[in-house]
C-alpha cells in the first residue's frame, strides 16, 4: 500500500507542474506577442511620422559612344531603401524637356541606381529628377542641371575589338589572295565531311531516301547558310546517284533558298529534269510542331541517311535519337556548344562548331575558300598565344607575388574584354 500511496502522494506536484509549465509558456507567449505587437506598432508609428529620404547625388551624363540619343542617370538610393525591411517601394524617373512640363519616363524597382534614357534628341536639353515612393509617402530628389546628348563617331571603348576584327579579317583576306596565286594550302581531314559521300552511297545501295534537316533558324543565321552550302554538294551527289532527297524546313525563306540550291545541284550534275519542288517542303515555324512532323517522316519513310546540319536547340536529341532508332547513318553539325554533346552521343559523325563552317570550303576544294580557312588560323594563333602568356603570368604572379606580372595579365585580359 505504501508504494501506491506514495505514488498517489506524488500526483499533486506532477499535476501542478503539468498545469504550470503550459501556463508559464502561455504567459511568455502572451508577453512576447504583446512586445512584438508593441514593436510593430512602434515601427509603424515611426515610419509614419518620419519623412521619406530622397535619392541623392543624382547625376545626368552623356551616354558615351552613341548617336546622341541617350543619356545616363546615376544616383545613390534613398537611405530608406533597405532590402526586405525598407520603406521604398519604387522609384519614378521624371524628364523635363526644354524647360517644359515634367513627365514620367520610367518606374523602377527599389535598389536600382542607374537608368539609361533613350530616344532623345540632340537639339533639346533635358533635366531629370527621381521620385522615391513608399506606401505612405514620396520624396523628390533635386533636379539635375540641363544637359544635351552628344554624338560620337567611333565606339572607342571597343577599340580592342575593332583591332582584332581588322587583324582576323585582314589575315583571312591575305590568305585568300595567297591561295588565288596558286600556293598549295594544307587543310586537315575532317571525318564528318569525308563521310558525306559514303553516307550518300549507302542510301543509294539501300534504295532509301536521304533526309536533310537545315536546323530551325532562318536565313539570317550563318549556320543555316553554312548548311545550305553543304546541301549544294549533297544535292549534286544525290542527282548523280539518282536517289530521293527529302528536306522538311521550318522557315519559308529557307525553303525558297534550299530549292534554288538543290536545283543548282541537279543542274551541275546535268540532270535538271529530275528536280522537283516537292523535295523541299515547309512544315511550320513552331519548334515542336516541326519536330513532330520530322519524326513522323523519319519513322514512316525510314531514310538511310540523315543530315542534321545547322542551328538546333532542344530538338537536337529528339531528332538524332529518332534517326538512330530507324537505323539511319547520321551526320550532324552545329555551332551551338550546348547541343554538340547530344549529337556526339546519338550520331555517327559530328561536325564540331568551326567544322560546320569549314565544310563548304573543304568540299568545294576551291583555293579562295581554302584560303579563308587558313586565315582563321591566325586568329587561333593569337588566342593560343594570349592564353599561354596569360596562364603563365598568372601562375608566376601567384607564386612570386610580383605586381608587374599581375598588371601584365590584367592588360592582356583587358584586350579581350568588351565593355559596354
Amino acid at each position, binding site marked *: 500500500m505504501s508504494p501506491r500511496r506514495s505514488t498517489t502522494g506524488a500526483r499533486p506536484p506532477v499535476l501542478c507542474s503539468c498545469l504550470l509549465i503550459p501556463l508559464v509558456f502561455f504567459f511568455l507567449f502572451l508577453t512576447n506577442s504583446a512586445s512584438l505587437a508593441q514593436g510593430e506598432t512602434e515601427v509603424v508609428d515611426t515610419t509614419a511620422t518620419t519623412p521619406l529620404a530622397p535619392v541623392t547625388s543624382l547625376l545626368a551624363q552623356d551616354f558615351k559612344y552613341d548617336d546622341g540619343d541617350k543619356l545616363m542617370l546615376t544616383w545613390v538610393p534613398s537611405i530608406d531603401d533597405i532590402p526586405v525591411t525598407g520603406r521604398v517601394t519604387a522609384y519614378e524617373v521624371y524628364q523635363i524637356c526644354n524647360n517644359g512640363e515634367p513627365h514620367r519616363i520610367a518606374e523602377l524597382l527599389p535598389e536600382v541606381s542607374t537608368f539609361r534614357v533613350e530616344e532623345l534628341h540632340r537639339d533639346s536639353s533635358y533635366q531629370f529628377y527621381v521620385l522615391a515612393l513608399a506606401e505612405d509617402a514620396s520624396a523628390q530628389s533635386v533636379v539635375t542641371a540641363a544637359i544635351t546628348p552628344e554624338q560620337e563617331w567611333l565606339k572607342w571603348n571597343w577599340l580592342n575589338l575593332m583591332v582584332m576584327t581588322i587583324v582576323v579579317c585582314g589575315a583571312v583576306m591575305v590568305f585568300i589572295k595567297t591561295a588565288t596565286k596558286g600556293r598549295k594550302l594544307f587543310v586537315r581531314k575532317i571525318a564528318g565531311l569525308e563521310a558525306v559521300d559514303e553516307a550518300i552511297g549507302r542510301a543509294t545501295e539501300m534504295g532509301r531516301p536521304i533526309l536533310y534537316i537545315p536546323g530551325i533558324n532562318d536565313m539570317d543565321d*550563318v549556320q543555316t*547558310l553554312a548548311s545550305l552550302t553543304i546541301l549544294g554538294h549533297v544535292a549534286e551527289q544525290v542527282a548523280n546517284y539518282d536517289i530521293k532527297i527529302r528536306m522538311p524546313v521550318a522557315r519559308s525563306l529557307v525553303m525558297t533558298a534550299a530549292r534554288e540550291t538543290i536545283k543548282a545541284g541537279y543542274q551541275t550534275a546535268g540532270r535538271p529534269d529530275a528536280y522537283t519542288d516537292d523535295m523541299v*517542303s*515547309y512544315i511550320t515555324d513552331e519548334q515542336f*510542331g516541326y519536330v513532330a512532323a520530322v519524326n513522323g517522316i523519319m519513322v514512316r519513310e525510314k531514310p538511310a541517311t540523315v543530315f542534321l546540319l545547322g542551328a538546333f536547340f532542344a530538338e537536337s536529341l529528339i531528332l538524332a535519337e529518332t534517326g538512330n532508332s530507324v537505323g539511319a547513318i547520321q551526320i550532324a553539325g552545329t555551332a551551338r556548344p550546348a547541343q554538340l554533346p547530344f549529337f556526339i552521343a546519338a550520331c555517327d559523325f559530328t561536325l564540331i*562548331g*568551326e567544322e560546320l*563552317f569549314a565544310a563548304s570550303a573543304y568540299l568545294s576544294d576551291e583555293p579562295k575558300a581554302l584560303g579563308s580557312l587558313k*586565315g*582563321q588560323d591566325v586568329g587561333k594563333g593569337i588566342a593560343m598565344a594570349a592564353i599561354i602568356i596569360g596562364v603563365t603570368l598568372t601562375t608566376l604572379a601567384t607564386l612570386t607575388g610580383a605586381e608587374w606580372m599581375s598588371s601584365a595579365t590584367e592588360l592582356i585580359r583587358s584586350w579581350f574584354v568588351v565593355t559596354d
Partner: protein
Amino acid sequence: MRREIPLLITGIVGVVFIVSYFIPHWPFSQMNNWFSDWFSIIQACAIFLGALNLLMVSSQKIARKAEGWGYAAVIIATFIMMVGIGFSGGVGFREAAGFDWLYRFMYIPLSATMFAILGFFVASASYRAFRARNVEASLLLVAAFLVMLGRVPVGDMVTSFMPDGSQMSDLASWIMNFPQKAGQRAIMIGIALGLVSTSLRIILGIERSHLGGGD
C-alpha cells in the same frame, strides 16, 4: 544579273552591319535598323509562300491518296480552323476566346508532350555515350558519374568524412568549371573564328552556293 544583284545586296548589307557595329553615328545607326526591319518584312511576306506550299503538298497527298494522306487531311483541317478562328477574332485575335483556347489547351500541351519525350531520349543517348569502349569514352563515363553524384545530396553523404571543400559536390563543380569550361571555350573560339571567316566569304561573294550554284 540573277546572281549579281543578290551578291551586291549581301555585300553592302554585310559591310554596313560590320561598320555600324563600331560607328554609332548617323547614317549607320539607322541603316542597321532599316535592314533589320526590311528582313522582318520579307520574312513576314515569305510566310505566305510557306503556308501555300504546306497546303499544296498536303492537298496533293490527299488527291493521290498517298501513304499517310490522313495526316495531310488533319493538317489542312487544323490550318483552316486556326486561320478561320484567328480572322474571326479581328485585330485582337490573340486575346479572342477561341484562338487563345486552341493555343493554350491544344498547341501548348502537344508541344510540351514532344518536349517531354526528350527525357527518355536523354536516357537512351546517355546509355550509348557512356559505354566504356575506349579510353576517351571511359573518361567521359567517370566524369559524368562524378558530376551526377555531386549534383545529388547522397554524393556529399558518401564523402562526408572528407574536409570541407573536398566533398563530391566540390569535385563536380571543379569538373564543370575547369576541364568542361576550358573545352567549351576552345570550341567557342573556333566557332567565333569560323563565323568571321564564313561571313567574309559570303560578303565577298566567294561563298555563293546558297544562292544556287558556284559560279
